[in-house]
């Protein structure tokens, strides 16, 4: 019974493929590449996380040891804290600045296209190049441009990337600067889909600027705001390049992030199994955030 069902299924499939083979040929290259280099490695990592994985020698099954280690290694909790700190600063910072800029750009103004392009320039600029540029902006001593500028206001020069307290906020400032443009475009698209009649009706009802924002713009923009929130959170939890280029995780490990930690585990210490376990915990956290977001704030509108 079961086999004949399978057989019939296979038959139907083969007929489908025969009549519709172009459809399958069109999707095949994408599926093969995504399968080999995205889905397979992601599953493979799950297996690796239970092994003391060796690239050349014999890998040894160690059960949950890698996951246990996660809670014992001193630097892990630091990496988690730093990443959460980074996320807590970067997500609201980028979101609100981007929303503010999008609101300004949504007004009837001249040269809107030019402003959009200008705000988008940091987005397309190479991560490494702009990280290097900001490292130079943060140059310690009064000869650094930022210290020079705050000197005008009478603030003494800071060792931006060398001070354990300032290093992470300094990195966040760079990533907010770099991240605004893309989110402005998403917000703008959302703002432009709000029907103008709603604002007219609100104005007739005597709503002021703030009331119109609070009761028309903000609620109608919610789905877009949630996408931005989700995408920003997911990318913030994986921040790597600015840390690598600007601080190398220092000073005193205060900018050591999870992604940088995983990189070090795998490629400097050869601890592939442990790296896989840490990355799966990160995966679980991101999945958790996505699920919570879906359950409590409704579906993501793609």
């Amino acid at each position, binding site marked *: 019974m079961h086999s004949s069902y399978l057989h019939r299924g296979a038959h139907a499939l083969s007929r489908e493929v025969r009549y519709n083979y172009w459809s399958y040929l069109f999707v095949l290259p*994408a599926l093969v590449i995504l399968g080999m280099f995205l889905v397979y490695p992601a599953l493979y990592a799950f297996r690796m996380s239970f092994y003391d994985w060796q690239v050349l020698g014999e890998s040894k099954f160690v059960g949950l040891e890698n996951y246990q280690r996660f809670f014992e290694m001193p630097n892990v909790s630091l990496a988690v804290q730093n990443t959460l700190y980074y996320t807590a600063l970067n997500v609201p910072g980028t979101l609100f600045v981007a929303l503010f800029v999008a609101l300004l750009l949504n007004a009837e103004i001249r040269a809107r296209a030019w*402003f959009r392009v200008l*705000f988008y320039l940091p987005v397309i600029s190479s*991560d490494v*190049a702009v990280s*290097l540029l900001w490292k130079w902006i943060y140059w310690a001593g009064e000869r650094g441009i930022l210290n020079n500028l705050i000197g005008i206001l009478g603030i003494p020069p800071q060792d931006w990337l060398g001070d354990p307290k300032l290093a992470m906020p300094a990195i966040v400032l760079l990533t907010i600067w770099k991240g605004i443009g893309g989110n402005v475009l998403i917000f703008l698209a959302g703002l432009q889909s709000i029907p103008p009649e709603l604002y007219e009706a609100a104005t007739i009802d005597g709503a002021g600027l703030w009331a119109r924002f609070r009761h028309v713009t903000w609620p109608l923009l919610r789905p877009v705001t949630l996408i931005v929130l989700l995408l920003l959170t997911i990318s913030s*939890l994986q921040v790597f390049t600015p840390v690598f*280029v600007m601080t190398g995780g220092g000073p005193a490990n205060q900018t050591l992030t999870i992604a940088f930690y995983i990189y070090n585990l795998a490629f400097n210490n050869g601890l592939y199994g442990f790296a896989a376990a840490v990355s799966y915990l990160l995966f679980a956290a991101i999945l958790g955030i996505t699920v919570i977001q879906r359950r409590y704030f409704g579906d993501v509108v*793609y």
Partner: protein
Amino acid sequence: MSKSAVPFYRRRQFSNAVGKLIIYTFLLSGAFLAFFPFAWMISTAFKIPEQVLALPIRWIPDPITWSNFAAAWRRFDFARYFLNTMFISTTVTVLSVTICSMAGYAFAKRRFWGRDTIFNLLLATLTIPGAVLMAPLFLVILKFGWINQFIGIIVPFCVSVANIFIMRQYISTIPTELDEAARIDGASDLGIWWHIILPLSKPAMATVAIFSFVGAWDGFLWPLIVLKDKEMWTLNVALGLLQTEYIAAEGSPWGVMMAGSVLVVLPLIGVFLTLQRYFMSGLTIGAVKG
């Protein structure tokens, strides 16, 4: 804060002028802040070494020198890294636009068994964080013997679900009558994709092209992991790894470093400005379903 939440042209009595003044003030200062770091980069790149750290700070270098660019080009082996990066980015872009537009066409216009299931599975992979791939993908690339080869940076990263999604969304707005008419006229499946779909989906293709090119050009983590030999490095790897060396050796090679950064960023800005007209409309369709 909410000044602009209201389209100003609808507010008949209120003084438009004041509101506009406020908006332009904010926008111009924002634009200034967005551009200020680039200005500093360009300014530094044209300074002679003695002036890079000189006080008081000079925004317009005097004399203006090209020697930093020459130095970056020679000492950095810049030409080689530039060609490596250009080769990788161009190949990724061509492959990405081709493969994603084919898949996007099939998902948007054709009916076949398993289409929606496959598409939803693809969307589900968007939750896989890149960090998860670090260790296992490296081992896959190692197994293929692609370490230290451009193919190890090109093939695994030439398809993205987001780009397939952008193509699908755009292609589904093309009227189906067009490809049906072509079919009745005897066009082949490949012919329909090539002669009907591709010419009509230019904004989406430009968007995917920009994302792919910029993504490949900007890539750092994977070229860093895969390309071990100095001759195989991309611009970003060279810039990222050599900077600590140079800072340690010379204290302040910032003129040369900023010249290098200008050379890395310039092609990206060129590609973006060329395609941005298409890009903005393509992105809007991909980003939010109106």
